[in-house]
C-alpha cells in the first residue's frame, strides 16, 4: 500500500485586488471587467516557486524527521533556473542530506500530477519516504486575462509505503498534443488559443475518458467520489465534466479562483491539500489535471487524517493569512513587468562567487550555524572559536540548524536609504529563544507594525537577484509569527 503520509501547503500572504488591476487596464481591454472580482495570491518580491516549495514542504515536515528521505521531486513550470537543479536547492534548504534522489518535473501544466503519479509508483516499487512538491509562480503579460486568473502557491506531500492519512487507490493518464497554450524557448509569457475551442475540443473531449478510466481501474462508481478536484478557470467546465461522468454536484471542489487564483501546475495539488483539510475518513478524493492530455488520481482518507488536519497550515491556513494589495503598480514592479528607475544604489555588482556559495551552502541555504560542544552556546555563523567569552573553545562546534528557531526582535529599523525592491527595508537583530542571534532582513512586515519584542520565525526567501547574470540568491529572513490577518 502507498499513501500520503503528510501534506502541507503554502499560498503567499499578498492578495492582489483584481478590481485594482482592472481599474488600471480596463481602458485598454474592456473585456477584463468580467474578472474584476475578488483577488489572487501574488508572491512578494522575495518569493518564487522555490521559496514557496520550501514553505509548503516545511508545513508538511512540521512534526516529522528529515532524515531517511529517499527522494525529493519538484514540479514547476516557473523554476528560477533552467539548468541548476531546482529540487536540489529545495533539498539543501530543507536539510534532507545528500543521500537523496532529486528531480525537477516541468514543461506542462500537467507536471504536478504526472510527477505525483511517478513518485507514487516509485514509492510502490522501491519504498519511501519521498517528498513531493509542486509550486508555481507564472508570469503573465500586463493587461492579459491571465494576469487576473493566475495565482501563486505550492503544495507538498510526504509519500510512503503505508496508507498514511490518504491511501492512494489508482491513477490514469492520457497524452494528447493539444496545444491550448504554449511558452516557447526564451519567451516571457504564454501564447494562448481561443477559450471556446479549449473547452469544447480540449477539456470536454480529453478529460472524461481518463476520469472514467481511473474509476474503472479503482473499481469505483462516480457516486463513490466525495471530492472532485479539477482546476479550470473556464466557466462551468468542471461542472459539465462532473455531470458528464456522473459525479454528485456536491463533489465539485471549489477551484479557489477568488481566493488564490489558478496556481498552475501546482493547482490540482493545492486543491488536493484543500480537500484533505476538509475530508472525513473514508471519503474518496479524485484529483485531475489537464495539459497535453489528462491525469487523474484517486485517494481515500483514512482514520488518521483528522489528527493531521489540526496540525497543518495547508491551504486553508495560508488563505486566512492574508494582506490585500491594491497597488497594481507594486505588483508590476515586483514582477519586473515595467521599466523602473531603481536608482544608482541598485547598480552594485551582485555577482555570486559560486565556490564560496558551495563552501558555505549549509550556512546559506539551510541556515546551519554552530553549537559549542564544550559550553553549549549556539551561534551563527558556525566558527572556529566559540563566541562565548567564558569558553572560547577551538574547533568545538557541531552543526546547529537555526531554521526552526523562533526569536524576538531586539532592535530594528525601517530603512528608506538602502536599495530594496519594496522599501522601506526592514531589518534588525533577532534574539533566538534557543540562544544565538542574527542581524537579519525581515519579510512579511508592514511599516509601523514592527516592535521590539515581536516574536519571529525564519523563512527561506530571495535575498537578491543578480540581473546581469540571471542568478537568484537565496537566504533566510525573519517573519512575524502568526502574521496578523488584515482585511
Amino acid at each position, binding site marked *: 500500500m502507498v499513501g500520503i503520509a503528510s501534506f502541507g501547503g503554502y499560498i503567499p500572504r499578498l492578495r492582489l485586488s483584481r478590481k485594482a488591476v482592472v481599474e488600471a487596464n480596463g481602458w485598454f481591454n474592456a473585456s477584463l471587467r468580467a474578472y474584476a472580482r475578488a483577488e489572487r495570491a501574488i508572491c512578494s518580491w522575495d518569493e518564487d516557486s522555490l521559496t514557496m516549495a520550501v514553505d509548503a514542504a516545511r508545513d508538511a515536515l512540521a512534526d516529522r524527521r528529515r532524515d531517511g528521505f529517499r527522494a525529493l521531486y519538484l514540479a514547476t513550470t516557473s523554476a528560477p533556473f533552467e539548468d541548476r537543479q531546482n529540487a536540489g536547492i529545495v533539498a539543501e534548504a530543507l536539510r534532507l542530506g545528500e543521500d537523496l534522489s532529486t528531480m525537477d518535473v516541468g514543461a506542462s501544466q500537467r507536471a504536478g500530477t504526472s510527477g505525483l503519479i511517478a513518485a507514487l509508483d516509485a514509492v510502490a516499487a522501491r519504498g519511501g519516504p519521498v517528498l513531493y512538491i509542486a509550486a508555481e509562480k507564472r508570469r503573465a503579460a500586463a493587461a492579459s486575462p491571465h494576469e487576473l486568473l493566475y495565482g501563486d502557491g505550492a503544495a507538498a506531500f510526504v509519500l510512503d509505503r503505508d496508507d498514511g492519512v490518504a491511501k492512494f487507490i489508482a491513477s490514469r493518464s492520457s497524452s494528447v498534443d493539444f496545444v491550448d497554450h504554449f511558452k516557447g524557448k526564451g519567451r516571457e509569457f504564454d501564447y494562448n488559443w481561443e477559450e471556446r475551442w479549449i473547452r469544447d475540443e480540449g477539456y470536454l473531449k480529453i478529460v472524461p475518458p481518463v476520469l472514467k478510466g481511473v474509476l474503472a481501474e479503482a473499481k469505483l462508481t462516480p457516486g463513490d467520489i466525495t471530492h472532485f478536484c479539477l482546476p479550470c478557470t473556464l466557466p462551468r467546465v468542471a461542472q459539465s465534466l462532473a455531470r458528464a461522468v456522473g459525479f454528485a454536484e456536491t463533489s465539485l471542489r471549489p477551484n479557489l479562483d477568488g481566493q488564490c487564483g489558478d496556481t498552475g501546475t501546482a493547482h490540482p495539488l493545492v486543491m488536493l491539500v484543500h480537500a484533505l483539510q476538509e475530508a472525513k475518513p473514508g471519503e474518496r478524493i479524485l484529483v485531475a489535471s489537464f495539459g497535453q492530455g489528462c491525469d487523474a488520481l484517486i485517494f481515500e482518507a483514512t482514520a488518521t487524517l483528522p489528527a493531521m488536519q489540526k496540525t497543518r497550515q495547508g491551504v486553508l491556513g495560508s488563505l486566512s493569512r492574508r494582506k490585500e494589495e491594491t497597488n497594481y503598480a507594486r505588483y508590476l514592479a515586483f514582477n519586473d513587468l515595467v521599466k523602473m528607475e531603481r*536608482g*544608482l*544604489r541598485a*547598480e*552594485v*555588482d*551582485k555577482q*555570486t*562567487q559560486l565556490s*564560496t*556559495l558551495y563552501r*558555505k551552502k549549509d*550556512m*546559506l541555504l539551510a541556515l546551519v550555524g554552530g553549537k559549542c560542544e564544550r559550553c553549549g*552556546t549556539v*551561534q*551563527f*555563523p558556525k*566558527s572556529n572559536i566559540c*563566541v*562565548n*567569552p567564558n569558553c572560547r573553545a577551538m574547533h568545538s562546534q557541531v552543526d546547529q540548524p537555526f531554521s526552526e528557531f523562533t526569536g524576538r526582535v*531586539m*532592535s*530594528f*529599523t*525601517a*530603512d*528608506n*536609504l*538602502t*536599495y*530594496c525592491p519594496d522599501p*522601506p*527595508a526592514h*531589518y*534588525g*537583530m533577532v*534574539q533566538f529563544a534557543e*540562544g*544565538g*542571534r542574527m*542581524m*537579519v*532582513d525581515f519579510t512579511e512586515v508592514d511599516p509601523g507594525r514592527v516592535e*521590539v*519584542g515581536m516574536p519571529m520565525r525564519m523563512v527561506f526567501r530571495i*535575498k*537578491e537577484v543578480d540581473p546581469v547574470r540571471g542568478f537568484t*540568491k537565496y*537566504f533566510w529572513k525573519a517573519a512575524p509569527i502568526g502574521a496578523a490577518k488584515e482585511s
Partner: protein
Amino acid sequence: MAKGIRDKVAILGMGCSKFGERWDREADDLIVEAYEEALKDAGIETSQIDAAWFSTAIEEQHVGKSGVPLAMALRLPYIPVTRVENYCASGSEAFRGATYAVASGACDIALALGVEKLKDTGYGGLPQRGRGALNSMFWANVSAPGSFAQLAAAYRAKHGVSRDDLKKAMAHISVKSHDNGARNPKAHLQNKITEEAVLKAPMVAEPLGLFDCCGVSDGSACAIVTTPEIARSLGKKDLISVKALQLAVSNGQEAQHNFWDGSYFATARAAAKRAYQEAGIEKPREQLSLVEAHDCFSITELVTMEDLYISPEGGAVKDVLDGFYDADGKMPCQIDGGLKCFGHPIGASGLRMIYEIYLQMLGRAGARQRQQEPVRGLVHNLGGFPHQNVCSIAIVGKHGA
C-alpha cells in the same frame, strides 16, 4: 598593564582642508591643502619626516589602494608610507601609527594624513559598496543609518524612553551641532536649523530623519607628531601631547552571543576604560574639557555620552536637554560642528577631531574658541555598525596635565 603613551608624543603641527562638496578638487588637491597648513604649523620641511601613515576608507571611489597616492601627492622622498583602513575610524588609525612610531623611537617625526573624496558617486549618502563575498550573501541589507537607527529602538526599550522624548533629545543634538558649525568657516554645513525642522524632516531610517544624519563630505586632515624634546628643540612652547590612544574591535560577541542589548557600544566602553587609565583620568565628567564624538547620527552621539562614562547610563537624554554638551555648557561636544556639520570625509575624520581639540588647546579656534581654557580633550572615532565595529578613543591635552 603597559605604561601607555601618555605624554610621550607631542603634536608638532596640524592641518585640515575645508570640508564639503569640493566638486572642483581631486583627492590629491585636498591632501596638499591639509598638508601645507600642517607643514607651516610644524615649521619643518618635508625632508624631515621619517615615515607616514595614510588613511582612506573607500579608496576605490578615489585614490585607489596603497601608500603610493600620498607619496605621489606630497613627493615624499622614498620614506615608509603605510596605508591604513579601519572603517570610519581610519583617521585615528593613521594617527596611532604615526604616534607609536615616534614613541618607539623608530622615527623622530612622523606624518598621519587622511583623505576621502566621497562626492563622486552620483548620489547622496555614503557609497553603496560590497561587504566581502560571504558577508554579501547573508548580511542584512544594512545601510549606515539603518544600522545605527536600531540603537534608538533598543535604547527606548531598555530605558523606557518615549519615542517623542528621544526624538527631542536627538533633535537638540543636531540643532546644537548646526549652531556650532555656523561658527566654523571650514565646516561643510554652516547653517543653523530649528528643532521643528529636524522633527519634520523626511525619514531616512526609522527613527532617523535627514537632520539626524551627518554630512558626507570631501576633505583631508593631517597631523605631524614628534617627541616633546624635539618639539621644544624646534621652538614649540605650549606643547599639546597625546595622553591616550585606545582601540577596541568587536569580536562577534555583540552580533552573535547573547549579552548585548543593542542600546550601547560595547567597544566604546572597553576603549574608554582603558583610555582613562592610560591618561590618568578618574572622573571623566569633571576632568575632560571637550569631547569630539563620532556623531555619524544623532543617536550615536547620545548613547556615546554614556559609553564614555560622562553621562550616567540612561541619563544622556537629560544631559543633552539640559545643555550640558552645548558650546556654552559644562562639556561642549562637537564644538566645531562634529561629523554632523564639519562633515565626514571618512579617512580624515579622526584626524579632524584631533585637529579641533588641538586648535582649542592653543586658543586658535576663532569664533568658536572655548573661553574656559581647555586642558584635556577626548576624541571618539567609530567605524562599522553598532553590532560590530571599531572604536578608537584618543585623549590629547596640555603637556604634563
